[in-house]
């Protein structure tokens, strides 16, 4: 298991490197460049600025310099945001984004699994019957629709929760954004849990377990739940990708000071270092999250561990 984990972690590095390399060149291929939009600058100032950030050198040289700096943990400085170090910008925003992501993940996974199990425990009960239509509606609602709607209902009409903005140490600010982000996650996981459990419960080994007189609880928790959660766990990879992307929307909708806004901003302003920093952070996050999901999968299903790659 440990060997498997180490092999998988080592596999991330080349992927990340490819991602960084491709991004590095693609953003520089785009029309326009940094400072191009700032009309007020004279040609000389512009050239000076370009020289200062090393943008006048040939691309391969720039690339080598970027990698060298990166190896020392230096992400460079932002062109557009008052010369701030990109690492500092990310350091300030990431806790907010991470808190939002983690809250949504926990909320989505726990409520999803609970709902799925609840539906199976009482076949034809309230949860079971309501789950399918509710999940369908939830999944059809993109976060940029649910976000404003939730804000409208709970923030503006009912005035239960703050609508937007962020003050440190006030978890209430996080409730609506986290729910917005967690809703589709919970719906997908509830569906997968329900389907997975129903399928496992009809497996022949469950019948064997019941024929041993092990009792309903033991059969469900010990024999059925683990294999039933395999589809849920394989979904966690795409779910992680969803969370990373979804947090961007939710941060925009609720005006949270996370890192999400830097991406679009950086890309529009051709702030190369900022975009690269974002690619690095979110790329690493998604890859790690996908890896975590795979490791969980290996733990759930002993057969996976033995498969080389």
């Amino acid at each position, binding site marked *: 298991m440990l060997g498997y984990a180490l092999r998988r972690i080592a596999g991330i590095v080349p992927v990340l490197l490819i991602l960084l390399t491709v991004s590095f060149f693609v953003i520089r291929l785009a029309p326009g460049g940094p400072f191009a939009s700032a009309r007020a600058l004279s040609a000389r100032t512009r050239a000076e600025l370009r020289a200062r950030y090393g943008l006048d050198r040939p691309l391969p040289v720039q690339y080598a310099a970027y990698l060298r700096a990166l190896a020392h943990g230096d992400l460079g400085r932002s062109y557009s945001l008052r010369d701030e170090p990109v690492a500092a910008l990310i350091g300030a925003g990431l806790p907010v984004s991470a808190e939002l992501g983690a809250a949504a993940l926990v909320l989505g996974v726990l409520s999803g699994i609970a709902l799925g199990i609840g539906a199976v425990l009482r*076949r034809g009960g309230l949860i079971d019957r309501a789950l399918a239509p509710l999940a369908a509606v939830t999944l059809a609602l993109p976060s940029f629709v649910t976000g404003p709607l939730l804000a409208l209902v709970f923030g503006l009409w009912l005035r239960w929760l703050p609508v937007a903005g962020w003050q440190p140490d006030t978890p209430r600010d996080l409730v609506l954004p986290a729910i917005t982000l967690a809703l589709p996650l919970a719906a997908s996981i509830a569906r997968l849990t329900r389907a997975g459990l129903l399928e496992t419960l*009809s*497996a*022949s*080994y*469950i*019948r*064997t*377990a*019941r*024929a*041993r*007189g*092990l*009792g*309903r609880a*033991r059969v469900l928790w*010990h*024999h059925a739940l*683990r*294999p039933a959660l395999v589809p849920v766990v394989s979904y966690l990879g795409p779910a992680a990708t969803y969370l990373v992307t979804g947090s961007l929307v939710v941060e925009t909708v609720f005006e949270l000071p996370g890192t999400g806004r830097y991406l679009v901003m950086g890309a529009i302003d051709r702030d190369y270092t900022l975009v690269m920093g974002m690619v690095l952070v979110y790329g690493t996050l998604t890859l790690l999250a996908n890896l975590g999901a795979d490791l969980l999968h290996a733990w*759930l*299903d*002993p*057969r996976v561990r*033995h*498969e*080389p790659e």
Partner: protein
Amino acid sequence: MSSIPASAEAHGASGEATALLALKSLSVRFAGVPVVDAVSLAVHPGECLGVVGESGAGKSLTFLAALGLAPPSARVSGEARFGATELIGRSERTLDALRGRRIGVVFQDPMGALTPHLRIGTQLTEPIRRHTGLSARAARARALELLEQVRLGEPARCLQQYPYELSGGMRQRVLLAIALSCDPQLVILDEPTTALDVTIQAQILALLAHIKRERGIGLVLVTHDFAALAGLADRVAVMRNGRVIETGSAAQVFHAPREPYTRELLAAAREPPGPAAAAAAADASGTGAPVLAVEDLAVHYRRRAPGLRRAAFVALEALNVALAPGESLAVVGESGCGKSTLTRAALRLIGVAHGRIAWLGRDVGTLPERRLRPLRRALQLIFQDPLASLDPHLTVERLVGEPLEVHHRALGAAARAERVAAMLERVGLDPALGARRPHELSGGQCQRVGIARAMMLAPRLLVCDEPLSALDVRAQRQIGALLDALRREQGMSVLLVSHDLNAVRRLCERVLVLYQGRMAELGPSEALLTRPLHPYTRALLEAVPVADPDVQPGRLGAVPLSERGPPAEPGGCVFRSRCPLASVRCAEEHPPWIEARAGHWVACHHWERGADGMLRA
């Protein structure tokens, strides 16, 4: 039904009182349709009740329903008493106190019946700890003891393993150990030997006989195979379409069956020895060259073994065989012996490591696929799983007509339809079925479609890979007869892969026995199946259960053997780890392939010892 008084008769008035499990007009309905219809049966202490019937007869469901294990959509009515306790309609909690403790169950499909992510040890100690309250250590000791009782080698190691690491036979033994773990009064076995190799099957049956003798508990043996009941069952119930149509003592049902249906099932299980198959007259156009010949053929697979690096696995080695026009040859052996690989390699459907392959006297070993295609029409293939061999989205008519579309493009649609209809009729299918799709047909019908498709191009050789094993007993007989008739009519050759030695004797003139990818014995079926030379062939023959309660007990009396041995070390005879005659020489040199009798070849150093006297009449 007439069955109810019959069962009451057999046990008189006291029958109900002493019964371990008594079912009284038990019915199971799905959406109003009865699948089990008013079944009344009883099992008594120390008695083995055999329940036999074709698939869909409701025999398994009867007992699942009695134990509260029927699917949730099933509506169960009637009575099922275990001792004084009524089981139908009782809570899960009440049933859990009986299941696993007083009633053990072994289900069909040993592959799926164990929880994949839990170690054998956990699954075996679970019921012990729950029902007897033993400590973890005591339960483990008990588990080891049980695994020894079911004759599993290395029980301590087995406790640490996951189900996927065990072979089918080993899993079946584990399931049996679980069922026996709390000293139940009754064990219900649902097709315990189906899907196992004939040698393993014999071992499991012997083990069951042993347990029955030692423990004196009640057994219910549910099976489709009359032969599996012989010698084990004291009473037999025959089920058909959800009803018990005949019950009686084993002797009575086996020797004097009342129902025609029972007689039919028995006849299918008990093939009269009769004359072995004779060569079909080869058609005049035959060149005399072998239809198919392979020389020194070898196939290696690259296999991923758990925890190991990729290793080459020898599927076939040093294979030499030729099929004359009109001849029928059977290939037999346990699963994994390379029989199917042989057919695929001979038809050039998989790559070979080395060797020569000739079709109709022409060397095709090196021809590219493009040049093989026109030749393929002379060599056709039919499959084990008839449904899977038919493209699900095509109609029967298109399926059977496809070979014509591909190989006789000039043929018009009308002419094609005519020939398809004629062929459907020839294989015993109503041409009106032409518009159906495969999943709308029965297994036997699908196999007929497969045969029709293969026959469409009038092949010179028909390769049949276990064509009968997925079919019900009666469909097996019909399809076997059809194949035989077609062979004689067309004068074609047949290469039959089968584990059913009765079918082999009926359909083929020569038999090739494979063991671990190597030829063990080759000879005329009559001689090989009655006077085998190789100890392995003998083991196979002795393992075949006989549907006769007077003969079978002697065969079950043998001490149950352990599982199949590990693959032998290179060099020497591959069979030596299982061979009763193995000597030092067997470990040192590979036995030569010699013609021991006229046309009867064997690869064994000690074939002469085997041939003399060792075989019972």
